């Protein structure tokens, strides 16, 4: 079991409330996923060539201001670092490859959770309510987000195994279900130079879709191709800087519910995570049909 949530704000006036509206959605799915939680929030993209990395140091104490000084000495570009406890968002224009290599050598306890111009990513182990409070999810602003509460079945309970998974830039995926052929997918992708961080089944799906998009597929096409390549049970919820997308396996083994109003599109594993939303009584509520792809653009 796991819980998924997604929220896309259609009415720009409500974007300041993204986090506040989402926290009860995420916490509402605690019984489906009590061991870890995470979310990816998308906001107005940074002007190119700026991009940002979500950084996570786990239980290691990191002196973020010292890290920023070291970065300034190593790379001549302007950097901005917004840190809170063991999480930070680094905004920069430095060469990504060189920067990640530098972080690996000089700050080995710092992990890169996401890369992009729009995405910030948080994930950790523990009850969803604690994680929401730890990272002040209620204060998040933006256009859309996807989140997850995890009950691990296939791999270990660690922050790296928590969802969302990311691959490439401004793309992430959460999953309720389990895949039966993730190793097959992995053996197909690794020879193409695609590197995996965990042994988690969901990571295989995430990297598969991102690879297809780099090969020129739209996300919808990639997902349709995934029906042939990915075997197992799934409700996948994905986010890019432009859209959120949900798809369920042909047997609809895992639940999903959508509520849509003029102000938002909200998605959760169950209605009880949507019941608190404003205007829910008059929302269009439906269950996504199996093997049909539903997406909403910002």
């Amino acid at each position, binding site marked *: 079991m796991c819980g998924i949530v997604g929220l896309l704000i259609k009415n720009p006036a409500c974007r300041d409330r993204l986090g506040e509206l989402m926290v009860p959605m995420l916490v509402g799915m605690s019984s489906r996923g009590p061991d870890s939680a995470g979310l990816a929030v998308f906001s107005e993209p940074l002007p190119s060539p700026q991009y940002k990395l979500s950084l996570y140091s786990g239980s290691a104490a990191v002196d973020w201001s010292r890290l920023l000084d070291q970065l300034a000495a190593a790379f001549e570009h302007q950097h901005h670092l917004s840190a809170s406890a063991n999480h930070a968002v680094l905004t920069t224009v430095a060469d990504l490859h060189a920067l990640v290599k530098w972080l690996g050598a000089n700050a080995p306890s710092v992990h890169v959770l996401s890369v992009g111009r729009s995405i910030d990513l948080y994930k950790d182990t523990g009850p969803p309510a604690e994680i929401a409070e730890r990272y002040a999810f209620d204060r998040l602003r933006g256009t859309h987000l996807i989140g997850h509460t995890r009950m691990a079945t296939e791999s270990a309970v660690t922050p790296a195994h928590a969802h969302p998974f990311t691959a490439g830039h401004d793309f992430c995926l959460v999953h309720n279900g389990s895949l039966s052929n993730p190793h097959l997918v992995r053996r197909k992708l690794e020879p193409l130079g695609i590197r995996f961080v965990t042994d988690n089944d969901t990571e295989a799906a995430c990297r598969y879709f991102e690879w297809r998009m780099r090969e020129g597929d739209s996300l919808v096409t990639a997902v349709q191709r995934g029906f042939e390549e990915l075997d197992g049970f799934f409700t996948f919820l994905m986010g890019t800087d432009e859209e959120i997308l949900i798809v369920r396996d*042909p*047997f*609809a083994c895992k*639940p999903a519910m959508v509520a849509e109003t003029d102000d938002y599109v909200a998605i959760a594993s*169950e*209605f*009880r*995570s*949507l*019941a*608190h939303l404003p205007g829910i009584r008059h929302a269009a*509520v*439906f*269950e996504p*049909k*199996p093997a049909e792809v539903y997406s909403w653009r910002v």
Partner: protein
Amino acid sequence: MAGVKAVEFDLAQVPLREVNRYLHRDAQAEGVTHVRISNPDGAHSIVCGLAHPFDVEIDGHVGYYVGGMNQRANITVRGNAGPGAGENMMSGTIRIEGFASTGAGASAHGGCLIVQGDASLRCGISLKGGDIVVGGSVGSFSAFMAQAGRIVICEDASDALGDSLYEAVIYLRGKVRSLGADAQFEPMRPADFKAVAELLGVAGFKHEPRDFRRIASAKSLYHWNADSNQEY
């Protein structure tokens, strides 16, 4: 009205467990006849296991297993239902005014489940004698291995309808994407028209029994045939 005793519960105020416990243990002795529940907000197992002929109204959307194992109660959900609505019900009536998620009426032994909207996949799976009337369409694998009882579908059915049916009978008004293994269309007999008319009447759906087709088991799976080479 004489003989009516109504109780109301607001699930935003009262824990569901207290409500279910009261309905199981105390309500009949206190002469309760009508139960009204507000703010269900998708909670699981609302009014599961009732054993008395209460009239229950639930105002909103419910989660998993509403009215599961119901005996004798008449339950109306003024909203949508999550998975397993009326699962394993024994008698009584459950009406879902919106749609029902997967496994509606699964393994119901008796009573009648009415879904006014669509029912999702696996509706009536392993049905054991109950009746199900769906005003909309049903998802794939509905009536899978259904052993006894009747399912009336007023619109369409998706894949593998009635796969591995035993003695349950399906009445379908619309199209079916595919029948399951061993399910077949059969001629409607007078008893079938009568059954459809009766069930439409219970549900309050205005359709003509003559527009329905009967689907039942060809019974070729009833006996193992070692010579069939897995082909039936």
